[in-house]
C-alpha cells in the first residue's frame, strides 16, 4: 500500500493579521500513522481543524486520495471519509452507547420509528471491532475514560473513514487503557486507514507512529520517518532549544520544620491510612496512575472532600475540621486538576480571577470595602512575578488566554495569598514546553523562599526533575517513598502498578 491519502500544499491561515500557519506542506500515505507534534500554539489544532472542516484555509490546497478536498463543514469532512476524535470527548453521558454512536442518523423502521433492534445489532458489531465487550444499551455515564474513548472511535468507524485524526487521545487514560487503544489503532492502520496522531506525549508518538511532523510557530520544521528522530531532538526542534534545559537548576534547601503533617488519613473506598510529612522549603511529589487516589487525597487535604478518620496538622495547628476557606486563610493553597472545572472563572477577567483568593486580606472593616489601590499594585507585582505575557490586558476574560497563561493566572491567584503549603495537581497539563519551564522555575523559587510544595503529576520525568522526595500511590495507599538519591523511574512505575494486576484480575472475574 503506497498510495497518497492526504496531501496538503501551501496551507496558510491567519487570524486578525497574525499568521498561524505559514505554507504548511503535509503528505501522508494510506495505512500510515503520522505523528504531529509541537508546542501549544504551534498551529496543530488549526491545521487539524482545517482538515476536519471546522476552519477554512486562507490559501493552499488539499487533496484526499487524489481528489480535490474542500470541506466547508465537519459534515463535509465526514462524508469525504475524515473522522476527527477531539481531545474533549463529545459523548452524551445520559444516552446509551448505541444512541451515542447513531445520534446523527438513527436506523428507522418502516414507520419511521427508531429501529432499536437494528441499532443495537450494528452497535454491537462496531463495539466488537474496537474490542469493547459491553452492552450497547449501557449508559455512557457508567463508562471509564478509556472506554469512552473507544466508543468515540466506534462512533467514527460507523462512517468507515479513510483518515482518522486523534487529538491527545491518551491524556485521561490509564496505561492499560492506552495499550488497548494502541492495539486498536495498529489494527485500523493495517486495514489501510490513515491516522493523524497529535500528542504531547512523545513516548506515545514514538511507539505508535511511522512518521512524524514537527510544527513550530505555524511552520513545518521537520518531517520524516520516526526512527530518524530521537525524543531529545524532537523536543529541541519543537522549542528551538536543547532539551537539557527542560528543568531549571534547583536552589531550595528543605528544612526540618514540619509544615504539613498528615497522619492516618482514611476515607473508605478512596484513600487508606495515608501518613506523610511535608517539610518547609521541600518539593514533595506524588506519583501514581489515574485513579490511584492522588487527586482525591489532595482534595481531602484541602477540605473539598470529606474524610472519615485521621489528622491533618499545618504549622502545628490541627486543620482537619476546618472548611476550605478556613484552610486557605491559614496558608494552604491548591491548584486544582482542571482549570476549567474549578480553577478559574472562565468568563471573568484576569484581574478578577487573580484577586479572588487574597481579597479578604484587602477588605477594610466594618463593611468589607476593598482597598483597591493596594490590591491593584499587588496584582501588578504578582503578574510580573509569574511572567504573565505583557500583551494581555487586565479586562480580558481568561477564556481567551492560552493554557500556559491560564495556569499562570491560577498560580498568581494563590501566590497573592502568600501560602505556606501549596498543593499543585497536574500544574503543567496542557501547557507548552516554554511555559512549563517557567512554572518549574517558579516552583523552585517558592521552595527556596521556604514554602512547602506538594506536587501531583502523571509525568514521572517531571517529578524526577523538580522534586526532593517522591511518594508513589496506588489503590488509595502510599506504596513507596523515594528520596532524591534513590530516584528511579522503573521503581516508581513498579510501585504505581502494584496491585493493579490484582484489581484487574478481580474485575475480569466479576464479568
Amino acid at each position, binding site marked *: 500500500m503506497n498510495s497518497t491519502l492526504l496531501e496538503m500544499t501551501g496551507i496558510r491561515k491567519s*487570524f*486578525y493579521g*497574525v499568521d498561524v500557519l505559514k505554507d504548511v506542506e503535509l503528505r501522508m500515505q494510506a495505512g500510515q500513522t503520522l505523528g504531529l507534534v509541537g508546542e501549544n500554539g504551534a498551529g496543530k489544532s488549526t491545521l487539524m481543524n482545517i482538515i476536519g472542516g471546522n*476552519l477554512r484555509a486562507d490559501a493552499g490546497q488539499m487533496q484526499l486520495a487524489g481528489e480535490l478536498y474542500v470541506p466547508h463543514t465537519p459534515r463535509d469532512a465526514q462524508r469525504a471519509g475524515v473522522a476527527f476524535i477531539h481531545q474533549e470527548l463529545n459523548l452524551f453521558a445520559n444516552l446509551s452507547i448505541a444512541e451515542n454512536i447513531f445520534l446523527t442518523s438513527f436506523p428507522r423502521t418502516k414507520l419511521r420509528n427508531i429501529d432499536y433492534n437494528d441499532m443495537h445489532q450494528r452497535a454491537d458489531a462496531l463495539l466488537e471491532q474496537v474490542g469493547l465487550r459491553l452492552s450497547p444499551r449501557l449508559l455512557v455515564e457508567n463508562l471509564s475514560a478509556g472506554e469512552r474513548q473507544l466508543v468515540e472511535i466506534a462512533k467514527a468507524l460507523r462512517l468507515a473513514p479513510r483518515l482518522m485524526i486523534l487529538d491527545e487521545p491518551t491524556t485521561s487514560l490509564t496505561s492499560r487503557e492506552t495499550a488497548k487503544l494502541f492495539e486498536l489503532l495498529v489494527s485500523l492502520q493495517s486495514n489501510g486507514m490513515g491516522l493523524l496522531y497529535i500528542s504531547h506525549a512523545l513516548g506515545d508518538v514514538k511507539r505508535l507512529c511511522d512518521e512524524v511532523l514537527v510544527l513550530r510557530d505555524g511552520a513545518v520544521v521537520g518531517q520524516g520517518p520516526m526512527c530518524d528522530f530521537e525524543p531529545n531532538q524532537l523536543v529541541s526542534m519543537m522549542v528551538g532549544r536543547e532539551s537539557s534545559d527542560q528543568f531549571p537548576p534547583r536552589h531550595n534547601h528543605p528544612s526540618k520544620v514540619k509544615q504539613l503533617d498528615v497522619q492516618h488519613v482514611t476515607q473508605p473506598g478512596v484513600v487508606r491510612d495515608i501518613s506523610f510529612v511535608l517539610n518547609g522549603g521541600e518539593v514533595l511529589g506524588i506519583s501514581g496512575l489515574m485513579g490511584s487516589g492522588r487527586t482525591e487525597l489532595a482534595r481531602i487535604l*484541602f477540605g*473539598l472532600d470529606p474524610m472519615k478518620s485521621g489528622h491533618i496538622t499545618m504549622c502545628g495547628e490541627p486543620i482537619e475540621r476546618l472548611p*476550605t*476557606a478556613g484552610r*486557605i*486563610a491559614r496558608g494552604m493553597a*491548591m491548584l*486544582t486538576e482542571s482549570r476549567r*472545572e*474549578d*480553577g*478559574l*472563572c*472562565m*468568563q*471573568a*477577567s484576569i484581574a*478578577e480571577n487573580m*484577586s*479572588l*483568593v487574597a*481579597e*479578604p486580606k484587602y*477588605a477594610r472593616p466594618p*463593611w*468589607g*470595602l*476593598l482597598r*483597591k489601590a493596594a490590591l491593584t499594585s499587588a496584582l501588578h507585582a504578582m503578574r510580573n512575578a509569574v511572567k504573565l505575557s505583557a500583551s494581555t490586558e487586565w*479586562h*480580558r*476574560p481568561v*477564556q*481567551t488566554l492560552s493554557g500556559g497563561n491560564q495556569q499562570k493566572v491560577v498560580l498568581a*491567584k494563590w501566590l497573592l495569598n502568600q501560602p505556606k503549603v501549596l498543593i499543585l495537581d497536574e500544574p503543567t497539563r496542557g501547557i507548552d514546553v516554554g511555559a512549563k519551564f517557567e512554572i518549574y522555575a517558579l516552583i523552585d523559587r517558592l521552595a527556596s523562599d521556604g514554602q512547602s510544595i506538594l506536587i501531583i503529576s502523571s509525568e514521572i520525568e517531571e517529578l524526577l526533575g523538580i522534586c526532593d522526595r517522591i511518594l508513589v500511590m496506588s489503590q488509595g495507599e502510599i506504596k513507596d517513598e523515594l528520596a532524591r538519591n534513590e530516584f528511579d523511574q522503573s521503581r516508581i512505575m513498579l510501585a504505581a502498578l502494584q496491585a493493579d494486576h490484582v484489581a484487574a484480575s478481580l474485575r475480569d472475574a466479576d464479568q
Partner: protein
Amino acid sequence: MRWPPEPGVRRSSKQASEFAMLDRVLQSGWLTIALSIAYACIMSVLAPGFASIENGTNVVVAMLPLMVVATGQTIVLISGGIDLSVTSVIALTSIAGAAVVTNDAGWLAGNSVATPVAVLAMLIVGAAVGFFNGGCVAWLRMPPFIVTLTTMIFASGLAVWLTQSKSISHLPTSFMLLGKQLWASGLVAIAVAVGVQTMLSRTRLGSSIRAIGNNPLTALASGVRVAPATVFAYVLSGICAAVAALLITGQLETGSPVQWENNLLDIVGATVIGGTSLYGGRGHVLWTLSGVLLLTLIDNSLNLLNLSHFTIMMAKGGVILLAALLDAWRHRRGNR
C-alpha cells in the same frame, strides 16, 4: 472610568471579522442607553404629549419602584440564580406595613412610632422571605427557579388570605411620604442603587457573588463562602422588594394584597434588557437602570398612542425576548 462598564470584551480570535462593528455594538454596555435615547426621540415625534414635562415626571414616577426592585434582582441574577418571588414580596410587605399604620384600626393607629415600626416590619418580612429563598438554594441545593416560584405563590396566597382580599387604605401621610414625594422616592432609589453597586464592585461580598455566578466550584475551591453569600443575595433582593413596596404603597395610598402581581416579567425583563446575564456572573446596576428606562418608555409611549393593554404586553414581551436572545448570544460567544 468607562460608564457603564462593558459587559466583558469577549472577542475570540477565531471569529470572522466582517461583522466586527455589529459585534462591538451588540456587546456594548451602552447599547440599551443608546436605544432608549433613540426610542425617546422617535416617540416625541409620534406620540402626542410624550415630550412634555408632565409626561417626563410620569415616566420617572413609574421608573423608581421598578428600579429599586430590579436592583435587587440584579444581585440575584449575578449570583447565577433568579428571584421570582419579588412581586408577592411587594404585595405581602405592602399589606404588612399598611396593617400596622392604617387609621382603620391598624395595630399602631395614631401612634407616633407607627410609621418607623411599619417600615421596619416591611423590611423584616422582605428579608425573611429572601432568607427562606436563599436558604433553600444555598443549603438545600434546590433550584432557584422552583424555590422562588413556590414562594411567590405561597406569599401571594398568604397576602390575599390575611386581608380577605381587601385593600387597606387611610394611611397616615408620614407613611406615604416616601412614595408621594418625588424627591424622596428619588433619593431612596438612588441610595439603593449606589449602595448595591458599591457592594457589588467594591467589596469582598460583591466579588464572591460574581464568582459564584461565574463558576460555583471555582468559588468554593478559592475559599469563597458560597452559602452565606448566596443567602445574602436573596435577602437583599427581598429587602429591595420591600423598599419598592414602600414606594408603591405610598404612591397608590393603599396597601393591596395584589399589588404589582402582574409586573414580574417587567422586573426580570428590565434587568435582562440592561445586559445583566441570565447565566450569572455578569451585571451592573447602571445597566439595570437603562433597562428600566427603556421598558418604562415603551410602556408609557404605547399608552399615549392609545394602544390596548394587550398590545402593550405583546410589545414588551417581544422586547424582553429579544434581550434574552441577545444575552444567550453573548453567552455563547463567551463560551467559544
